[in-house]
């Protein structure tokens, strides 16, 4: 029996179909801090259920309880109507409940194939059946249009590829219930679409699927039912057909959202702040030249793997590079991030987990790490650090259960906000932001766009790299497009639209710069 | 004329006495190589018995030694391997520590460990006719140390000397300094110290001096370190005597072995170098200011 993708289940009330997995009156607290309040929730076979809410609303925590990674403080989890208490995730997995985490759950030093089959290796007698595993890995990845080598070590593959490996790992485990925590945060629309095809297939096979996303268009595209959470409470569960994207956003944030993007104001002047000429990042980027004007927001678009990240890491000295960089008309040597910092250039990494934040440290240490000298007169001034943290919590609406929480225990979105706060604390003239809103809820996104806009108006110059086309289009005054390690074009004004950019990014149009 | 290869295998210089022994071995080898061009020496130092066995194996397999001079790290483990060397027809000289099987070696140059303890014990019994309270610093836990302590104990038996405590100072100045400090805290009255080794005596003396304790009348070390002999010679009250256990016995053994190959002198047999009590009267005979030990 299949459920057609578009037809939603008529009634959201519980008695229509038996829940595959359900929560009954679940409360959860970490130490003294209460995170979830009285959550009732059910997930039915053959449905795609979206769990949405602001950063820190408790989505990931809910999912972890469902999948046996955390135990509820009170209340129960029911599988097929019977209460179960998974002692660990393995038991949940044995029952067909599989979860993909928001943060990567891969052993970096192991290969793709080793990760996919970790803990569930295929054996021939005592030994591993490597051929079988490799074949199946290739199959799984092919289904996801992902062509990474099964023998590549995970530490050597790109972030989106890691996500695909995570998905392949979950698919390999034959789930009855598949729980995905922001699977598309690091994917582009095209890759997300590949994932959704798989989701459609699984739904047709009767799998119950729960997922979260901050991209509401995706939610509308794929979900049958939607549950909205706010501050640890379940606000509503509705059929997707009954909710527009605006209604979702409003219900999540608890207020009306005005226009997502602030109006564009353009550059202050023609005066270039940053000029990059003929930059080469060996192995990744060649002959890249561009400039950034004062007060301008410059977008960088391109497909995943087009080398935007590497180009910018080259510019700020995190990668070795050749070529010429001028700041305010002066040639400068940038051999490390501290050179860039001295020149007033800051870079916000796209990889907050392994390059952005110290997960086993508190918020204060993380916030000030980049600009510690501001807080140091011989010794570190703890008081002004605390004041800076107060200000950042306020400015960026960082929601943490306690002030001393380890950053690894913050919700994904709040980590991202902290990372932005950390970068901004260095008060740069030029800010390069790589994927600024990964995993950020729509309400906060608006705040961040507003913030970027304000910065630009204050005369700072900003580069935004984003794989969300709408973000680049909505924010940038001018957009540079990259493809395969080259800058392939630049659009401005009315040309900043999806079609032009996509054509350039895919190589259907435009000539290569620096190609004599 | 063919060269004769003589292997010398000794423990590494991990404490003062062994250091002196290393020096004498090296010096003897250099001297003999110069005098007798037809002799070739292979000197190896080992940090544990297994390494010493390796060294000996290598000397046989790759250097084709005609003679082996060995100061066994421990008797037991070296017996088999040295026997193999002897069975291969090489000349074997054993120094200081006898092997646990008789008749393997051609020449045995020995110190006398029980004798060392006995001479020390007799000195105490002699010096403290009315008995007294003493503490004892022991060496690295080994058979040698056991033999010395047993010899000492049987010598003081019935003399009324009470041993308050014994701890291992491991033939090490720092360790014995620490142990002596703690002995001084623990026992309000100590009449004398048997440090059983000159390195340990140095540490013990420093601790006593630091504590400013007048009750300790003297410290008896052992082995014949030149600084100690000098103090005996000078009539230092804290160091009234010393007991020899000369590290130069290795040089004697090497020379005798060499002699076997360059002359017709009969050198096989057993040479026991007894431990002698050094007192201010005879100290001059044992003082070699140029030796490093």
């Amino acid at each position, binding site marked *: 029996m299949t459920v057609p993708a578009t037809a939603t289940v008529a009634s959201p009330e519980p008695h229509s179909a038996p829940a595959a997995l359900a929560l009954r009156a679940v409360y959860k607290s970490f130490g003294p801090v209460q995170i979830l309040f009285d959550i009732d929730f059910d997930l039915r076979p053959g449905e795609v259920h979206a769990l949405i809410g602001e950063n820190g609303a408790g989505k990931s925590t809910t999912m972890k309880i469902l999948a046996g*990674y955390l135990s509820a403080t009170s209340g129960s989890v029911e599988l097929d109507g019977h209460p179960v208490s998974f002692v660990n*995730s393995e038991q949940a997995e044995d029952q067909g409940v599989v979860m993909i*985490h928001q943060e990567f*759950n*891969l*052993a*970096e*030093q*192991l290969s793709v194939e*080793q990760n996919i089959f*970790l*803990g*569930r*290796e295929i*054996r021939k007698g005592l*030994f*591993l059946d490597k051929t079988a595993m490799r074949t199946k890995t290739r199959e799984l990845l092919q289904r996801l249009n992902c062509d*990474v080598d099964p023998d590549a070590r995970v*530490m*050597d*593959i790109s972030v989106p590829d890691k996500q695909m490996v995570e998905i392949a790992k979950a698919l390999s485990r034959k789930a009855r219930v598949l729980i995905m925590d922001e699977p598309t945060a690091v994917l582009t629309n095209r890759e997300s679409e590949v994932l959704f095809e798989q989701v459609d297939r699984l739904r047709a096979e009767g799998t119950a699927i729960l997922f979260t996303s901050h991209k509401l268009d995706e939610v509308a595209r794929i979900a049958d039912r939607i549950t909205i959470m706010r501050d640890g409470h379940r606000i509503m569960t509705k059929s997707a057909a009954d909710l527009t994207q605006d209604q979702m956003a409003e219900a999540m944030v608890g207020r009306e959202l005005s226009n997502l993007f602030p109006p564009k104001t353009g550059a202050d002047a023609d005066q270039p702040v940053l000029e990059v000429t003929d930059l080469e990042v060996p*192995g*990744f*980027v060649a002959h890249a030249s561009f400039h950034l004007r004062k007060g301008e927001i410059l977008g960088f678009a391109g497909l995943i793997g087009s*080398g935007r990240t590497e180009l910018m890491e080259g510019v700020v000295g995190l990668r070795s590079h050749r070529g010429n960089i001028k700041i305010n008309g002066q040639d400068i040597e940038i051999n490390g991030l501290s050179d860039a910092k001295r020149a007033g250039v800051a870079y916000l990494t796209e990889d907050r987990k392994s390059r952005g934040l110290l997960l086993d440290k508190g918020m204060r240490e993380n916030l000030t790490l980049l600009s510690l000298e501001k807080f140091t007169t011989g010794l570190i001034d703890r008081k002004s650090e605390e004041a800076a943290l107060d200000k950042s919590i306020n400015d960026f609406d960082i929601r943490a259960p306690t002030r001393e929480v380890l950053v690894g225990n913050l919700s994904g979105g709040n980590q991202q906000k902290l990372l932005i706060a950390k970068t901004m604390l260095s008060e740069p003239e030029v800010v390069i932001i790589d994927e600024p809103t990964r995993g950020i809820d729509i309400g906060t996104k608006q705040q961040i766009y507003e913030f970027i806009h304000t910065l630009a108006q204050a005369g700072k110059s900003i580069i935004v790299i984003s794989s969300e086309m709408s973000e680049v289009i909505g924010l940038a005054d001018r957009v540079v497009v990259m*493809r*395969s*390690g*080259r800058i*392939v074009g630049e659009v401005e004004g009315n040309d900043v639209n999806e079609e032009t950019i996509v054509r350039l990014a895919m190589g259907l149009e435009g000539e*290569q710069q620096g190609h004599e | 004329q063919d060269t004769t290869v003589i292997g010398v295998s000794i423990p590494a*210089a991990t404490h003062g006495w062994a250091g002196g022994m*290393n020096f004498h071995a*090296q010096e003897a080898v250099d001297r003999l190589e110069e005098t007798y061009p037809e002799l070739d020496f*292979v000197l*190896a*130092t080992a*940090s*544990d*018995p*297994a390494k010493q*066995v*390796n*060294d000996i*194996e*290598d000397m046989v*397999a*790759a*250097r084709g030694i005609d003679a082996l001079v060995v100061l066994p*790290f*421990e008797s*037991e*483990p*070296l017996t*088999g391997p040295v026997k193999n060397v002897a069975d291969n027809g090489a000349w074997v000289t054993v120094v200081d520590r006898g092997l646990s*099987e008789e008749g393997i070696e051609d020449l045995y140059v020995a110190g006398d460990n029980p004798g060392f303890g006995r001479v020390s014990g007799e000195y105490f019994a002699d010096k403290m006719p009315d008995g007294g309270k003493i503490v004892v610093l022991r060496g690295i*836990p*080994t*058979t040698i140390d*056991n033999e010395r302590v047993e010899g000492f104990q049987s010598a003081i038996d019935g003399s009324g000397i009470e041993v308050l405590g014994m701890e291992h100072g491991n033939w090490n100045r720092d360790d014995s300094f620490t142990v002596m400090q703690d002995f001084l805290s623990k026992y309000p009255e100590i009449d004398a110290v048997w440090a059983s080794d000159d390195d340990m005596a140095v540490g013990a003396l420093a601790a006593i001096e630091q504590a400013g304790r007048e009750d300790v009348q003297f410290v008896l070390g052992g082995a014949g370190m030149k600084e100690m002999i000098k103090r005996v010679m000078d009539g230092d009250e804290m160091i009234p005597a010393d007991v020899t256990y000369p590290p130069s016995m290795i040089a004697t053994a090497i020379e005798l072995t060499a002699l076997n190959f360059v002359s017709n002198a009969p050198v096989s047999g057993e040479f026991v170098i007894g431990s002698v009590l050094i007192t201010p009267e005879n100290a001059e005979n044992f003082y070699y200011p140029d030796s490093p030990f």
Partner: protein
Amino acid sequence: MSDTVSVKPASNRASPFLDLHILGPILALIVLVVIGALMNPNFLSYANITNVLARSAFIGIIAVGMTFVITAGGLDLSVGSMAAFIAGLMILVMNALLPAMGSGVGVILVGMLTALVAGLLAGGLNGFLITHMRIEAFIVTLGSMGIYRSLVTWLADGGTLSLDFGLREIYGPVYYGGLFGISWPIIIFALVAIIGEVVMRHTAFGRHCAAIGSNEKVARYSAVHVGRVRMATYVLLGILVGVATIMYVPRLGSASSATGVLWELEAIAAVIIGGTVLKGGFGRVWGTVIGVLILSLIGNILNLTDMVSPYLNGAIQGVIIVLAVVLQRDKKAEG
């Protein structure tokens, strides 16, 4: 169409660095062999090669076990004193049984069994404290290092425990004998190494070790029995220490507080020279075998030649160890 892009986005990466990383230890070994052969014609003789291989067996067998422990993110400093303790225990047991059982193979077999069981228990104890009591492996094994070393000193009353001479005759061939001209320690070492390599690369256990060492949480989330696997690495190491001791006792016929001193450092050094990562997550048994051989060869070569002064042996050894690793140093992956 513009297909003149010179930039290749990763993927087919036969990077020369990887190769050097693999070839590094092998290269170092070859260099050493060449040096040895040039310095002394007897270096490549059957007798010398046999000696070197056979004496590598003790550390080698232990180092194979250590590879698993380190790969899983652990460490064991106690193996040297554990070996000394097991050797002492074995000798005591065999000597004690001699009157009852008579001088024969039976006593030897019981002795061997004792060694294996003692190794299992000792490893198990380390593992228990580390996995269940959650104490830092460094501290646990530093503690047990002191404990075993003391115990053997105490068992031997400060001296040496010696195996009965009659038994030594019977037991001797286990070290000195062999099959087809290959001595037993070499055969056992080879077997342990091959099995270790297979287990590391071709069983779930090996993968799980790497996974735990790489990221314990990920392993736990992937249904790997983290505690059990980690425990198993220590037990395995304990048993291998037992095996090494079974080979060691017939060689020297005795045990004392000087037995196995610094074996732990040597074993760990061999593991790391072989390319296993000290912080865990990646291990290779064949590399460890090469590491062990490199270390033994250094000692052997120093004995084969007349170096400046034996006092400087340690210095030369140190320099060579560092050089051997320079050959395969991690060219830090950028970014």
